[in-house]
């Protein structure tokens, strides 16, 4: 079967179903967001390495680099990174629990419980970031 005909016939490889979330359960949403947050965390890792590498220029250069990030815009970015990291970690725990029978049977409840716990955690973290940021 030619690739073109395979596409017409619906048998070709596709990641379009990855974003088919509107009529699906929380598991499909969690799968999509886990991938998106994973990409975001990878991008953050590169940014983090870039920032820490300023230490190679000495302590003053490192402090100056950190000072440039002590702005409201950067605080918003850091707060978003925390949100991304909290979701990715919490969903990872849910996937781990789903490898066991009781975790799999209650994966929807576990998703909502971890989501609520994650939001509460993020609210505390965001308050800390913005409160400390405003203070300095």
């Amino acid at each position: 079967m030619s690739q073109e005909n395979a596409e017409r016939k619906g048998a070709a490889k596709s990641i379009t179903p990855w974003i088919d979330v509107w009529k699906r359960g929380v598991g499909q949403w969690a799968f999509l967001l886990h991938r998106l947050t994973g990409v975001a965390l990878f991008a953050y890792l590169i940014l983090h390495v870039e920032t820490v590498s300023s230490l190679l220029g000495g302590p003053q250069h490192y402090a100056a680099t950190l000072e440039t990030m002590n702005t409201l815009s950067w605080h918003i970015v850091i707060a978003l990174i925390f949100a991304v990291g909290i979701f990715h970690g919490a969903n990872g725990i849910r996937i781990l629990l789903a490898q066991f029978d009781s975790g799999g049977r209650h994966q929807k409840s576990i998703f909502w419980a971890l989501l609520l716990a994650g939001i509460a955690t993020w609210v505390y973290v965001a308050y800390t970031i913005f409160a400390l940021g405003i203070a300095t």
Partner: protein
Amino acid sequence: MSGVNVTRTGVEESAVKKTVAFRIFRFSGKEGDRPSYADYALEVDSNTYVMDALDRIKEQLDPSLTYRSSCHHGVCGSCTTRVNGVEVQTCKARVFDLSRDENVVVVEPMRNFAVLRDLVVDMEPFFAKIKAVRPRLSTNAEGESEKEVPQSRENLQSTSAYEACIECGACYSACPIVSSDPNYLGPAALVAAYRSCLDRRDKDRELRLTLVDDEEGCWRCHSVFSCVDVCPEDVKPALAIAGLRRMVISTRLKGIFQGRRGLDQ
């Protein structure tokens, strides 16, 4: 059966009718032809199922419409298709339930299958994957009756939930991992493998575990649980896949302590 439902308000639902637009996927299957959608308007009532609508379209509006049906009461799985983006058996899907918000019902073939024509898909690769995991009982017949190999009641309770699979393909269609990796065995085949591995009479357990202990086997699942959401028999394929993983790990660990390097040694 009277065919009349009486609601809490006392209204006889069968008296309530409405016109619904059915948007149906059409494809001749011939090389060079492109898929399209055809629209058909039908008056339906609360007792109209999607299969009834397809039958009436075929009889009255367009005899060329092609689709599968068999038992007409939800036990064979032949009529499984996608309605409004979700895998259902058309003989169990009521049109009124599907068209509450808009009077449009979209009917499409299952995903991840090659379309032969209209709503009919090629099930052979799906069945081949099920056969590939050897879902048949292999017993040690020495000393046992040739006619009967009894299974304990307790073991039967473990396997019966997974024996309910009717191989309709709904889980395979709903799985986004099958879409991006057509070589993945898929939920139904892994359910068949798990069911056979759970059966204590079976002597091919370790052989079957080597078949699924693969990047295209039980380790490809990403715990999306769409298979569980769409299964008409409540088989819970995702739990079976997790069970297979635990079996593989357990068998490997035992093998390590027994001096074997892998499942196949």
